[in-house]
């Protein structure tokens, strides 16, 4: 393909090809300093290409394709090419990843132990992980956490944080401007701005962590918390996994072990500040 960028995020190597320069330039800028794929061999290929040949020039629209493709995925405007690249990488992970059990969760680490946060879209898991990542925790990822069935360890997947709508302002107040990508307005997911993880998160991306606490946050309610039964946690995590079924028995065993060995809490919070306080308190109460 005409333009290309290779990188590694955590344990996973990607090769991204594009018919246009702009998405690759944006990736190069925001992912500067990320390592290359191990042995130079990417685990997954992503292609950003015109839907039809002439759509490269006329009202260019970016089809997201690659080793794994969703047949009916809608293309994006070229102005949203960076988002297309991110979605392309996510898609490969969601459909093609077979080594790790993928949890649709954000994660941060302290002292070699990981705090996992998962919930429905809009629950605030991305923002929480990003904020904690600026306040003494190591940011491991805002979208996918990779559980290794062989070891029970959690691998980081610190891609760009995808900030949506109100979360953009919250992080702009926290982080220097040079770590942000362009503001993408009117995407299918609303306004989006990408945030580059901090240097400490990038430097430590190859270090896995032992899962120690699972939170199911919910934004927009009075502060509250409740303990969760193992069966509820198990079912919700199967729903939060993109490859639980595809992994078969190892996935079942890995998830079962995680649920039995790690405490979980559902938390409601009215604003990010209270969520951070609650997370810190629950972490201490769990003896961590």
């Amino acid at each position: 393909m005409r333009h290309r960028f290779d990188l590694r995020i955590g344990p996973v190597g990607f090769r991204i090809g594009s018919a246009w320069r702009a998405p690759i330039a944006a990736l190069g800028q925001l992912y500067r300093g990320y390592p290359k794929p191990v042995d130079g061999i990417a685990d997954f290929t992503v292609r950003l290409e015109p839907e039809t040949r002439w759509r490269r020039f006329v009202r260019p629209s970016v089809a997201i394709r690659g080793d794994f493709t969703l047949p009916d995925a809608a293309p994006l405007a070229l102005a949203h090419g960076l988002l297309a690249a991110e979605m392309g990488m996510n898609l490969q992970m969601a459909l093609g990843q077979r080594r790790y059990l993928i949890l649709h969760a954000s994660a941060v680490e302290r002292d070699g132990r990981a705090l996992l946060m998962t919930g429905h879209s809009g629950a605030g898991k991305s923002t929480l992980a990003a904020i904690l990542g600026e306040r003494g925790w190591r940011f491991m990822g805002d979208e996918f956490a990779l559980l290794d069935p062989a070891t029970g360890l959690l691998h980081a997947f610190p891609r760009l944080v995808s900030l949506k709508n109100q979360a953009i302002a919250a992080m702009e107040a926290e982080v220097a401007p040079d770590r942000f990508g362009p503001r993408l307005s009117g995407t299918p997911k609303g306004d989006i701005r990408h945030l580059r993880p901090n240097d400490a998160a990038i430097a430590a991306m190859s270090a896995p962590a032992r899962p120690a606490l699972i939170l199911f946050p919910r934004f927009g309610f009075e502060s509250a918390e409740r303990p969760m039964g193992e069966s509820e946690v198990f079912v919700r995590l199967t729903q939060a996994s993109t490859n639980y079924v595809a992994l078969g028995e190892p996935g079942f065993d890995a998830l079962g072990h995680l649920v039995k060995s790690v405490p979980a809490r559902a938390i409601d919070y009215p604003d990010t500040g209270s969520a951070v306080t609650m997370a810190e308190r629950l972490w201490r109460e769990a003896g961590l």
Partner: protein
Amino acid sequence: MKRLADALRDPATADGLDAEGWTGLIAAARAEQLIGSLAFRLEGRSLPPRVERIMEEARTSAAQWRRSALWEAEMARRALRDLDVPVVLMKGTAYAAAGLDAGVGRSIGDLDIMVPREALPEVEPALLEAGWEWVKPDPYDDAYYRQWMHELPPLIHRERDRMIDVHHTILPLTARVTPDAAAMLAESVALPDGLRILSPEDMVLHGVAHLFADGDLAGGLRNLWDQDRLLRQFGADKSFWVRLGARADLHGLGTHLARALRLARRIYGTPVDRVIAGRGRLSDLWFARRLTARDGWGRETRKLTVFAFYVRSHWLRMPPLMLARHLWTKWRKRPA
């Protein structure tokens, strides 16, 4: 991509690939649904560590495909067991269930079964009862399938999200040739659990019909790899070729079989019966170009050739007037 076919035929041809070469080979193999087959072919060779890791994952995936395909077959068996109808597994699931070389590492998506056409009025409600549902709610498509196709409209299971294709023969009723479905069922072989598979000759001929008398050769490299594996396994017995030739004549598939043998030999080096394969034709080159139209990014190349085969597939599938009517209806119903 010729390199993919070469690596399957002779894994030593992949020795010494550089990082770029491996990345391209992996992308092409994924695009052709051959990554599992390739992974088993490369097993035990000395590979760059990351390639070894990717191939190991592909073998694990293939084992899971196999397990879920066999489970899906078992679900169909249970749904139909009270009907006293022969249920013949086809394609990937059949290879896996029979433990054939063609099943090693093969990707298996839908469950394909064949039953006698006269049994459809019992089979269909039994499947619906067991949780399968129609995929295509469009009345034109539904009517089209029932009148002209070799299978029921596709069904999907509402809990397991898996498709089943229920065939009553191996080619659309509108196709130029009409294979003898009753003979295929009559010669089918029972497996220990009561499900059946086609006889070796019919298994090959079903693949041949699917490749050359029906579709546009999309996924053809994988289907031809099936042929290579089947022919190497069955063809070790000399009498197989005699039966295969006679059976092809019975089904009217002699020309297509000859083409399949020549292309399998050309692309995968398959040992074939020279008499049945016949003399090479110039058009074989054109077929070979279509089968290897894939680049190192996993993209389809040679657009014109690919399009020509698309047109050919419709030409083969139905007579011109009917094709015109079909395309007209489809065009009017296209999404705006």
